[in-house]
């Protein structure tokens, strides 16, 4: 168990170092996320009340779009120069590779969520009414979508049509997560009267199952 975690940490820190050096997150994904928020603003005709009401849903749609980019990036890093073979040859447990790469996506999503929260406060006039719920729901949703995204990233990788196949495979599976995360943020941002904690519980369960399933299935998916 200890070695699994330390191997996962190795993989995660490797991916994060690559992201830090390539600056794809800061130079491309983050501006894209803000752009999505701005586009929603244009589309909804800049009505502050409407925007505030729909801010939770728009927030999570933006996160899912960024997730697609992050997962594509994560697989692209491995397929370039056949680095994936290198990883396998290094004798790392597939579960550790899965958890490590998911953790790297998770960290990137957290950065994006912070940025997007600032974005909806500035552009839509939202305010965080329940800071603790905002934090916990943001963490568990990021975990749920990062692990699910990583699993489907592995499913779609190496087929030559990853860019188009990944969204159609991944987004339907994440539909329940989108519903739950939106309801949780409805509560956290005071956009609607719902019980955000009940939904956060659901999201946490989803995250646990997705991590377990991903860690178990990843090995079978990458062995070729």
């Amino acid at each position: 168990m200890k070695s699994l975690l330390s191997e996962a940490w190795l993989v995660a820190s490797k991916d994060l170092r690559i992201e830090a050096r390539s600056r794809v997150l800061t130079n491309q994904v983050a501006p894209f996320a803000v752009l999505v928020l701005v586009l929603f603003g244009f589309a909804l005709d800049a009505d502050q009340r409407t925007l505030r009401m729909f801010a939770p849903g728009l927030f999570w749609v933006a996160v899912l779009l960024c997730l697609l980019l992050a997962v594509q990036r994560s697989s692209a890093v491995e397929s370039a120069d056949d680095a994936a073979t290198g990883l396998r040859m290094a004798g790392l447990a597939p579960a550790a590779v899965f958890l490590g790469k998911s953790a790297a996506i998770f960290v990137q999503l957290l950065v994006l969520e912070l940025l997007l929260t600032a974005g909806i406060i500035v552009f839509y006039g939202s305010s965080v009414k329940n800071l603790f719920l905002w934090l916990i729901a943001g963490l568990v949703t990021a975990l749920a979508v990062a692990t699910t995204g990583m699993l489907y990233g592995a499913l779609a990788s190496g087929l030559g049509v990853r860019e188009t196949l990944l969204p159609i495979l991944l987004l339907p599976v994440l539909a329940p997560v989108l519903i739950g995360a939106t309801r949780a943020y409805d509560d956290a941002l005071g956009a609607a009267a719902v019980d955000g904690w009940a939904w956060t519980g659901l999201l946490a369960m989803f995250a646990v199952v997705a991590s377990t399933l991903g860690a178990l299935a990843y090995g079978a998916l990458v062995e070729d």
Partner: protein
Amino acid sequence: MTNPTSSVATTGSPGSRALGLATLAGLVGLLVLAFVLTEPDVRIHPSTGQEIGQFDAVRLLYLHVPMAVITYVAYSLAAFASAGYLIKRTPWWDVTAHAAAEVGTVFCFLVLVTGSIWGRPVWNTWWEWGDVRLMTTLILFLMFVGYLALRRTAADPRVQARRAAVVALVAIVDLPLVNRSVEWWENRTLHQKSTLGELKIEDLTLFTLMVGFLVFLMVFSWLLLHRFRVGWLTLAAGEHQVAAAIKERRAEADGSGVASAVGETS
């Protein structure tokens, strides 16, 4: 038509032809039951004295409900065969899973469309976001659309089969939610509860629905059989082409003396 070795090569066999004819006869029978023999759903409200019910729109349910059940059957079979493939790793399981998923998706699409057409007059809406069964069915459909998209990639068949099996197994998680949603969200969702579960149906209406199940099970079986054979032929054609190509190259090699040129002896 009945000669299995007729000059036209088909995926038909005597059994499948008999099944096909029986299915067509069954469909005609179902149409007569659904449109001629059964009554529209009308009753008198006990207190207001007004006519209430679905009226003739109920005739769409003899189509919609059996197809929904067949969708469950098809997707369950696809998931079962996918699990079978992951354990046995033989093409038979993979071809079965693919065939069941494809036919199931045709049925699932029709379930969504006919449900929508029924919902417009009866519910007053083509689509209702406040209905859990509608949402879970749509997600199920989209997940299997993704499955079929994955199957159309030009990957190594074994890689593709393995990944498709995982996609099908994850997708099938949604199926119990679709099926049980009307019970779990009993007073929270628009969809009516199962009629058969509580036996709130009788006589000719029940009989027609049962005939509907049987007929659409036959339609499904016929389509599955032929779709399976198409999948099987696709595999065989691939192998046969490779074999023929090797034979051809070999013939060329023998003819031009390449074999001796490269020092091979036979």
